[in-house]
């Protein structure tokens, strides 16, 4: 097993880090809170031009044919910037699926690769059995891939009977309850849907690591600058220990995410267990980072004007998306008890 990244993988990560640092500052995240589609179309184009949407698309289809390993490195940087929009949904979950289904590829692959079309993936399923499916950016996306009554449906905007907005604690997040009025039933949708959900869960875990890391960094910067009783507040042990705990949690989650990516890239039989474990620890670490960051910032951290909450609330939403901790813990438990079998069953979010 090789435990280090290649120079090329590092270069891809750094290129994304550099681009999102310049093109997606905190003000851009805040803009998504102010209204509009909840993503920046010009940034979507830049992500497309860079190749982010083609990462997991095979080379003959116009993608880069890369693996989950490159994907998590990119997603960690996306999380660090709290980039708004259905990036996990499009780049990780949907794109390989769009490329694999000729009926979808013909119309959507090229614009989706270029970031000119927005594709989303409804991981929530028809949870309440009401015939509606909760889908992130379901009203804004050009194409929604959703689990509807056990079938994977591809819905264009024309296929929507209605899209009822769902609000979230993260104001940059857009969700909708979609009522399909048509759409294409994706062939082999069950397996495609499960694989997409798996990729989305892993990408969300990577994003959570980035969010957590950034919150720790933000807080370290703040407590180094903020002085009380004549010294920086970060010089007090009570503050230091809190931040050390948060840092440790994030550092512990990162290799779990890398391991899951390696398992997915190699199609290991432990893939399901590893992805679930990564999602659990990444979610927990980001939640801890957020809580510690909030406490160490003091009153300013509670204010809407401070940027911390943009990152913290994203972490809360992502922790509960793509299977919450209960779903993933149950899957880890089942896998451990059953031994190393390829468990790609996603369970249900109410588990």
């Amino acid at each position: 097993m090789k435990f280090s990244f290649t120079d090329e993988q590092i270069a891809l990560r750094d290129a994304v880090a550099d681009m999102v640092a310049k093109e997606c500052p905190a003000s851009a995240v805040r803009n998504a809170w102010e209204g509009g589609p909840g993503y920046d179309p010009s940034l979507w184009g830049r992500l497309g031009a860079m190749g982010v949407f083609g990462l997991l698309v095979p080379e003959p289809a116009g993608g880069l044919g890369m693996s989950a390993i490159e994907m998590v490195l990119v997603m960690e940087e996306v999380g660090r910037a709290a980039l708004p929009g259905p990036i996990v949904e499009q780049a990780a979950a949907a794109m390989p699926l769009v490329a694999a289904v000729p009926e979808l590829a013909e119309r959507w692959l090229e614009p989706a690769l270029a970031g000119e079309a927005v594709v989303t993936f409804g991981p929530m399923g028809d949870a309440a059995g009401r015939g509606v499916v909760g889908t992130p950016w379901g009203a804004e996306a050009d194409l929604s891939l959703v689990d509807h009554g056990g079938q994977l449906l591809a819905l264009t905007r024309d296929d929507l009977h209605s899209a009822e907005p769902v609000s979230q604690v993260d104001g940059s997040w857009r969700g909708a309850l979609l009522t399909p009025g048509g759409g294409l039933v994706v062939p082999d949708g069950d397996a495609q849907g499960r694989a997409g959900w798996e990729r989305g869960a892993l990408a969300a875990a990577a994003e959570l690591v980035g969010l957590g890391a950034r919150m720790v960094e933000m807080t370290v910067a703040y407590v180094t600058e903020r002085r009380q009783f004549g010294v920086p507040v970060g010089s007090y042990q009570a503050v230091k220990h809190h931040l050390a705990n948060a840092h440790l949690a994030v550092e512990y989650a990162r290799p779990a995410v890398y391991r899951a990516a390696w398992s997915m890239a190699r199609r290991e039989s432990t893939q399901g267990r590893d992805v679930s474990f990564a999602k659990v620890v990444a979610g927990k670490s980001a939640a801890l980072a957020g809580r510690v960051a909030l406490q160490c910032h003091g009153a300013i951290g509670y204010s809407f004007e401070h940027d911390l909450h943009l990152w913290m609330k994203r972490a809360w939403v992502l922790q509960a998306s793509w299977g919450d901790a209960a779903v993933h813990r149950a899957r880890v438990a089942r896998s451990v008890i059953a031994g190393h079998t390829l468990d790609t069953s996603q369970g249900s979010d109410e588990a």
Partner: protein
Amino acid sequence: MLRMNVAVCVKQIPDPAAPGELDPGTNNLVRTGKLILDDSDAYGVEIALRLAEQAGGGEVTLVSMAPNGEVSGLRTALAMGASRAILVSDEKLAGSDALGTARVLAEAIKRASPDLVLAATESTDGYTGTTPVQVAELLGLPAVTFAKKVEVEGGNVKVERQTEAGYDEVICPLPALVTVTAGVVEPRYPSFKGIMAAKSKPVDQLDVAGLGLSPDQVGAAGAGQRVIEVADAEERGAGEIVEDDGEGFAKIVAYLEQLKIV
């Protein structure tokens, strides 16, 4: 012109985001760690790529001098789309001043036989701003500095040259050297495909002897300049407080005029 060969001088510098360090003996910047592409050179690379694209073909060659065979900054520019790079790296080059650097770059540029040489107005870690014109002089090329727009028409380069009052239009026969100011174009981000392609693009590594220069023309041995002393920058003052007696605006206008902002 069917093909447009452009050489771009690029400097690989210590990351400005990391605290810099000076050698206490020579007062020179320590350049032992990983070096990155100087941000101000990305504009020259972008303009060169556009000129080659507009001409319908041609090569963009990067020319750089760096310690320890450092190529990470060059890879960034190759990933943006440059065709190849010439890197001069030699222990004998340590301590080079602007003229020594210009001698090295000029010799390296000759090997690319470019129609046009581009450089930034100055580097982010050195700021002498003298190297590009020295390169032009050594190559016997006309130099146009502070370009904010560069176009090639026929056998000429047409430049909008930034001045304090606005800009001059300068038309100059090729080959020529042009320095470009930062911020005039938006440098492209390297794409993943570009990053992967950059790995296999040629980087010709040369040393002082390979360039046909003698060791006493370059490095500390050939340097006519030395850093005698280093002092901390002055702390920012408290600023001036002006009581507004109804004529405060005049003071603001006078202040801005003094800064040549208005």
